[in-house]
């Protein structure tokens, strides 16, 4: 991570308004997770190339897998039922299961008390994630990081809405929404009144409006960023 440092250093001298880029956090530390796996899981579970079922099922490709879905593994009735009911292993469901297995799957055969400590649990989940699909190759794969809302320096982002920041953010909108107001297949957002814009973004953010792309796009905008976008679109109206 020398890059951002290299990039920022000369400008810190000149421009006080430069902010530190916000960074998402990877699930946990996979190397620490590997040690933990070795200590607490490997008596029953195998993972990696040529892993086979032992006392527990092999754990390759765990993220995104339906519960109870490894062929030829004798699951408990309880786990098999959870699978047919639709339980899929995601960051959230695995987190809950590893924290307290019987709370999620009451009749599980896994004789493991659970890992209450958030940090080590995150490390273990990061380790397991490394043996699942890569999102680069399969874009629908489970996330590898937890998103963070950006922590912006106040001098960059007045709560009023920074139109310059909005202009940058809007470049993400214009991949699909044409600035000239063309309205085919994808609706126009040009000259959308600022107040309606803010309300609509919050409705997507809270998943009240149904479109998955927009739920995702709005879902990671902070209140300040929505304000910045609204301010930018307001300048377009002038």
């Amino acid at each position: 991570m020398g890059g951002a440092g290299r990039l920022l250093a000369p400008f810190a001298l000149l421009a006080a308004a430069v902010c530190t880029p916000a960074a998402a956090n990877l699930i946990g530390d996979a190397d620490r997770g590997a040690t933990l796996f070795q200590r607490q899981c490997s008596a029953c579970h195998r993972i990696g190339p040529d892993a086979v079922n032992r006392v527990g099922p092999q754990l390759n490709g765990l993220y995104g897998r339906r519960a109870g879905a490894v062929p030829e593994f004798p699951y408990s009735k309880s786990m098999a039922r959870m699978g047919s009911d639709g339980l899929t292993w995601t960051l959230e469901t695995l987190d809950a299961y590893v924290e307290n297995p019987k709370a999620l799957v009451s009749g599980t055969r896994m004789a493991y008390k659970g890992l209450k400590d958030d940090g080590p649990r995150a490390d273990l989940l990061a380790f397991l994630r490394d043996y699942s699909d890569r999102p680069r190759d399969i874009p629908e794969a489970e996330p590898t990081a937890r998103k963070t809302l950006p922590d912006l320096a106040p001098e960059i982002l007045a709560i009023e809405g920074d139109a310059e920041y909005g202009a940058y953010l809007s470049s993400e909108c214009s991949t699909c929404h044409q600035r000239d107001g063309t309205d085919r297949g994808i609706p126009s957002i040009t000259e959308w009144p600022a107040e309606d814009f803010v309300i609509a973004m919050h409705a997507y953010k809270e998943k009240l409006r149904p479109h998955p792309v927009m739920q995702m796009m709005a879902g990671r905008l902070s209140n300040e960023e929505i304000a910045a976008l609204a301010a930018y679109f307001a300048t377009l109206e002038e």
Partner: protein
Amino acid sequence: MLNRRIFIHSAVAATAALSAPRVLGQTKPRVVVIGGGAGGATVARYLAKDAAGALDVTLIEPNATYYTCFFSNLYLGGFREFESLAHGYDAIAAAGVTLVQDMAAGVDPAARTVTLAGGGVLPYDRLVISPGIDFVEGSVPGWTLADAEVMPHAYKAGPQTQLLKAQIEAMPEGGLFCMVAPPNPYRCPPGPYERVSMVAHMLTQMNPTAKILVLDPKEKYSKQALFEEGWQKHYSGMVEWIGPDMGGNVVEVRPGSMEVLIDGEVQKVDVCNVIPGQMAGAIAAAAGVTDATGWAPVDPATMQARADANIYVLGDASAQGDMPKSAFSANSQAKVAAMAIRAELTGSKLFPAKYSNTCWSLIAPEDGVKVGASYEPTPEKIASVESFISQTGEDAALRKATYEESLGWYEGITADIFG
């Protein structure tokens, strides 16, 4: 006004002097962009547009017309005219970008120059490399680039795409279309499977007893459940997919006799679409920014090459982490890079990087699906933080709306890239 301009220029010069030696007599920082596709054309246009004259931006691209690889499958399926994939560079030039219609032949990172195939030399303060993909030699035994005239890859849009379509149209009745699918990572993860859908659609219309054979080295692929459902529904019995457990990873081709060997077993084919393993476009390696994988590692916050702070790498050629290699990704990365380069060279504000991607695929007429994710930089890589995908069993109205949305997206992104 004159005084103000002079002041701005000297301020910029003072800024850049900290990191970049000046070329004698030069008044503006120079950004050279190699490659006029989704990454390069976007970054050039955004730099020129947003810097409003403060940067000297040059785009090197050998072709006067760019044919998008995205949506070229729809041409294969008969849903679009080939010319609908064509885009020119007039609006990019009008935005203030200097166009150089030539091929970048070499980069001297120490001297900060790009050498052109035509002999010219272009100095730069910052270089953006966005060359797309090249094919890995020997990836499919029996196939070299010279064989693409017989067994087309059609994975760079242009004459190859037209050749593949002509071959499909000329298939004998009840013939066999074979696709050798690529290993990860490659451009456009759902692309080969959308292509299978489009070929199946065309064959259903004109050659309904023909068959499609897909030989795949991968156990899983993107949108797999959606494609399998669609093939069953629309093209029942036409498509056979052979994964690595059945020999899909031990494939050799014989272009001379139009044969394919699957784990040693000979299969005669009528059309063979070989999509080989891929790597960054050759100029990235020539610039010294690729690693042993053949891709160019970049700083997740800026798209700056890990190997050289003066070079940015965009799109398919970059190794950035979780983003798939797609036009949407390249366009998204280009906007982050444009912002970072402007911040470096003109002192404009540096905002946090945000990335996103959505890939639409067409399975059959008005049966569209999509997959997408949002991404954020971590110190190690660009990481995926959220994703969504169309569901199996969706109703026809939703699938039609998704298809129409994809048409809107094509118009939108091409307007965003090419102006």
